[in-house]
């Protein structure tokens, strides 16, 4: 058994495709890797930890900000830093159940629902160039975004030994659907292409400016950048055709990944849901170091042994603990068996970080969350000799 490494050493080794002492663990420190507020409240109670006010990390997904005591209990190897809220914008409540964000997008939580979904797109009625010019765009220079950023990153880097993740999320594809409406933007991509490209470029200009100003503050202190969470897949196939992806989306992703590669040696993480198997070689070409969440129930993504064999030398897998069946409905023993199987498939040679396939949902029993992280800690020791 190897000597105990620091979290930062452990993560660096695995992202460099070397075997560390054990598989690193993540909970809510990047994107698509967290826990909903309802499940988190249940977990805190189950663990017998003091009641506390639960902060929301991500409003639309109702994702909880995980507290330090829980992160330590589960031996989570990462801590994140991300831009804050702008000074000159507060989300506007719309009726009893909706809010509008700084991009003009309105989201609603239906009665009895667990999170917010898109219900209002500011450019739904206007798919012309003037809509882009006339839209009220957020201000990337707003100082609220950067206040305290450098101090937090420096503190994490110098005063702790955690792996520091910068959440700079430069998604543009999904965000343009939110600005135009789902059906409209799909049709823009096919039949109003000049507009679609101009919209994505304008959006990305703002995102990359925010990233640029953030990187100036924190670049020297970070180990991983969560670059984008642009989903390209649905359950059984990609959202758009591979040729359309390569013509319209990939060049803009290249702009994004090149931006980061020019500024940092930190590893680059890409969150991408759905049946995205056809694009994995493209992501590797773009310089993606780690792919999350590995949505097992999507076509082409379930055979983790095969994915490792095909891509494991170049790609770190970040996720892969089933959230559709095992975590919500399985017993703790079944959760442990799931973790064991994924470690067997994905961990050898390094290049694996354990977390759930997207946020732990409200119906996941807390004993299963505990089973997942405890199993990963116990079973994820290198060299992997599990059967």
């Amino acid at each position, binding site marked *: 058994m190897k000597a105990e490494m620091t979290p930062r050493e452990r993560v660096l080794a695995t992202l460099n495709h070397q075997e560390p002492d054990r598989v690193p663990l993540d909970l809510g420190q990047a994107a698509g890797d967290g826990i909903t507020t309802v499940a988190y409240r249940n977990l805190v109670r189950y663990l017998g930890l003091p009641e506390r006010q639960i902060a929301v990390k991500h409003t639309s997904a109702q994702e909880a900000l995980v507290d330090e005591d829980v992160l330590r209990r589960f031996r989570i190897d990462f801590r994140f830093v991300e831009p804050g809220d702008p000074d000159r914008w507060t989300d506007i409540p719309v009726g009893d159940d909706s809010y509008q964000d700084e991009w003009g997008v309105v989201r609603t939580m*239906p009665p009895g629902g667990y999170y917010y979904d898109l219900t209002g797109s500011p450019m739904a009625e206007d798919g012309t160039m003037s809509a882009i010019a006339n839209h009220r765009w957020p201000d990337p220079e707003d100082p609220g975004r950067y206040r305290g950023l450098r101090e937090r990153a420096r503190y994490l880097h110098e005063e702790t030994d955690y792996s520091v993740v910068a959440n700079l999320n430069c998604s543009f594809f999904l965000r343009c659907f939110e600005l135009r409406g*789902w059906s409209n933007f799909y049709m823009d991509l096919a039949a109003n292409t000049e507009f679609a490209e101009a919209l994505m470029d304008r959006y990305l200009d703002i995102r990359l400016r925010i990233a640029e100003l953030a990187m100036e503050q924190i670049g020297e202190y970070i180990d991983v950048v969560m670059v984008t969470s642009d989903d390209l897949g649905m359950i059984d196939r990609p959202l758009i055709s591979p040729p359309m992806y390569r013509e319209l989306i990939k060049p803009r992703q290249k702009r994004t990944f090149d931006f980061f590669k020019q500024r940092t040696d930190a590893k680059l993480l890409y969150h991408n849901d759905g049946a995205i198997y056809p694009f994995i070689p493209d992501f590797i070409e773009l310089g993606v170091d780690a792919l999350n969440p590995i949505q097992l129930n999507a076509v082409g993504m379930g055979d983790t042994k095969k994915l490792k064999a095909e891509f494991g030398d170049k790609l770190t897998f970040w996720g892969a603990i089933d959230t559709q069946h095992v975590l919500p409905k399985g017993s703790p023993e079944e959760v442990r068996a799931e973790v064991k199987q994924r470690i067997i498939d994905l961990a050898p040679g390094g290049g694996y970080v354990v977390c759930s396939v997207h946020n732990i949902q409200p119906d996941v029993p807390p004993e299963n969350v505990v089973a997942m992280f405890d199993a990963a800690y116990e079973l994820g020791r290198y060299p992997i000799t599990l059967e």
Partner: protein
Amino acid sequence: MADYSALKEAVIEGNAAEAKALTQAALDEGAIPQDVLDNALIPAMDVVGEKFSAREFYIPEMLIAARAMQSGLALLKPLLVAAHSKSRGKAVIGTVKGDLHDIGKNLVGMMLQGGGFEIIDLGTDVKPARFVETVKAEKPDLLMMSALLTTTMTSMKDTIAALKEAGLRESVRVGVGGAPVTQRFADEVGADFYAPDATGAVTKAKELVTA
């Protein structure tokens, strides 16, 4: 029979302006509206459905083709109504209570229209009671429910129970679909049919109304 190949092409390619213009031109030349529907628009949408199944068309191509079809259909509709022509079948569709997702449902609705069905689309977040009221009032052949969330698909069971309670269950065929829905789930909740995608849904729907 008239040559509708240019109109079919326009629909398949998703050229709405062209589809509208060619439909109008056909009508101006004396084409029978039912004929344009049966021999141009419906076959064009069959091709679109096949291309989706074959992974040649994805959602963008489907949506623009459906839009092109609808722009032609809009010209035919008032004439079809005036001629008292019967649709192939009538379907009530909606996304279930608590669920705001609608692209899949919209695609199914458009493909059914393109298949000659009359559609009543109740939108999203539809409570069981509203599905039941609509079935009672409209007497459709089919009721088709969509859900994207594992937490909302349970409402499908509630709707089927509500139909039974209202004595309407036998009067309509119930179909379910959406990403988390499976054949097994459809069987468990007592649905009559299930399909994994829009093309499959239309195929099943057609089978059921001719059966």
